[in-house]
C-alpha cells in the first residue's frame, strides 16, 4: 500500500496534467474557430468558382490545357497534408496510414512514387521510412493563406506538365463534423472533365454567356486556379480537422484525469482512515495497559 504522501503527490501531478489538457482544449477550440472562419470566408469563392468552371466545362477539350492530359501512369506523386503538431489523438496516424497504404499499393503495381509532405507530422513519419520524399513544407499549417497553397500547387502542376509525374493525388482530412474527421484520397491531376461539371452544370448550361476571351482560353487559364483552390481547401479542411481532433482528444484526457483523481482520492482517504484507526488502536491499547 502506497503511503499517504505518495498518493498526495500523485494527485497533485494528475491535477497539473489536467490543467494542461484543459488549457490545450481551450486553445484548440479558439484555433478551430479561426480555421472555421477561414473556411467560411473561402466558401463563397470556392462555390462560385466551381459554378463558373462547371458552366465552362461544356467547352472543355483535352487539348485546352496540359493539366488535362491523361498519360500512361509510370510515376505518381502524392501530396500528404497533416498537422504540424501532435496530441490530437489518432488524427495524424490515420492520415499517415492512408498515405503509406496508398504508396505501397501503387508501388506494388510497379509505379514509381514520390511524396510531398505538408505538415511536420507527415514528414517526420515518412523520413524514417523508405519513401522517396521530394519536398516537405512545415510550419505552414498554422498561419497559411492562399499564397502558400499556390506555391505548392504550382510546384505540383509544373512537375506534372514537365512529365515527371503522370498523376498527382492528395491525402488530407475531410471535416465532416466536430466529432468525425476522415482521411480522404483524391486525384488532383490530371483534372477530369466529369469532376468539373459537378452541381454547377445544370445551372450554367441554362445561361448563354458572352465570353471574353473565348471560353476555351478562359477555361485553360482558370484550370491552374482550380488546382490552387483544391490544394487550399485541402489545407483548410485538414487544419480545421486537426483542431477538432485535438479538442476531442484533450476533452477525453481531461475526463480521464478527473476519473484518476477520483480513484486516487478514494485511495488517499482510505489510507488516511486506516492510519487514524491504527493510531487510535495504539492509544487505546496503551491506555488499557496503563490501567492494569
Amino acid at each position, binding site marked *: 500500500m502506497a503511503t499517504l504522501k505518495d498518493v498526495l503527490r500523485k494527485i497533485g501531478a494528475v491535477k497539473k496534467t489536467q490543467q494542461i489538457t484543459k488549457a490545450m482544449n481551450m486553445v484548440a477550440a479558439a484555433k478551430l474557430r479561426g480555421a472555421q472562419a477561414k473556411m467560411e470566408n473561402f466558401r463563397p469563392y470556392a462555390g*462560385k468558382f466551381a459554378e463558373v468552371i462547371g458552366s*465552362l466545362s461544356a467547352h472543355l477539350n483535352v487539348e485546352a490545357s496540359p493539366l488535362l492530359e491523361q498519360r500512361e501512369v509510370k510515376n505518381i506523386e502524392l501530396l500528404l497534408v497533416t498537422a504540424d503538431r501532435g496530441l490530437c489523438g489518432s488524427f495524424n496516424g490515420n492520415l499517415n496510414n492512408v498515405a503509406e497504404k496508398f504508396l505501397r499499393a501503387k508501388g506494388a503495381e510497379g509505379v514509381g512514387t514520390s511524396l510531398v509532405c505538408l505538415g511536420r507530422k507527415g514528414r517526420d513519419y515518412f523520413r524514417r521510412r523508405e519513401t522517396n520524399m521530394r519536398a516537405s513544407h512545415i510550419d505552414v499549417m498554422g498561419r497559411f493563406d492562399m499564397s502558400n497553397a499556390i506555391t505548392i500547387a504550382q510546384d505540383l502542376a509544373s512537375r506534372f506538365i514537365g512529365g515527371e509525374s503522370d498523376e498527382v493525388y492528395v491525402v488530407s482530412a475531410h471535416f465532416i463534423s466536430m466529432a468525425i474527421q476522415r482521411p480522404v484520397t483524391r486525384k488532383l491531376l490530371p483534372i477530369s472533365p466529369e469532376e468539373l461539371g459537378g452541381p454547377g452544370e445544370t445551372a450554367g448550361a441554362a445561361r448563354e*454567356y458572352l*465570353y471574353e476571351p473565348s471560353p476555351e482560353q*478562359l477555361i485553360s487559364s482558370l484550370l491552374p486556379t482550380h488546382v490552387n483552390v483544391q490544394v487550399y481547401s485541402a489545407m483548410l479542411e485538414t487544419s480545421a480537422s486537426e483542431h477538432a481532433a485535438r479538442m476531442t482528444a484533450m476533452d477525453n484526457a481531461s475526463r480521464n484525469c478527473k476519473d484518476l483523481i477520483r480513484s486516487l482520492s478514494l485511495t488517499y482517504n482510505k489510507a488516511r482512515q486506516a492510519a487514524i484507526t491504527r493510531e487510535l488502536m495504539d492509544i487505546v491499547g496503551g491506555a488499557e495497559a496503563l490501567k492494569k
Partner: protein
Amino acid sequence: MADKLMLEVITPSRAVVREEVEMVVAPGEWGEFGALPNHAAYLTAIKLGELRYKVGNKTEYAIVSGGFAEIVADRATFLVTSAEKSHEVDIARALKAKERAEQRLQAVAAKREAIDVARAQAALQRALWRLKIAERAK
C-alpha cells in the same frame, strides 16, 4: 427590372465588396469594360488594375488582381486572388514593394543576379497600381 447592380468582389480570404451599385468599371482581359444593371450574361478574365464603382453620387475605387468576373443581369461577381479598397491599401508596404522590385530589375539589367524578371515586373506593377489607387482615397 432592377436599377441596381449587386456587386461582389470575393477573394479566397474574404469578401472585399458586397453592396448595391449603379455602375461598375473593371479591367477586363481585353481592356476596361463597364457594366450597368441588366447587363447581358458575361464572363471575362480580369487582369490587374483599378475597379471603379458608383454608389449614389460617389465613386469608389479598389484594386483587383488577376481572376475573373461573372455578370448576370443584376449581379456582378468578381473572383480575384486579391483585392483592396482604396482606403485599405497599405501605402508603406506598397512603397517598399516598389523599391524592392525596382532594385531587382536594376540588378537584372546590370546582370548581377539571375532572377525571375517576370515576377519582379509583376510585383512592380502591383505596387504601382496600389499606390495609384491609394492616391484616389485622398
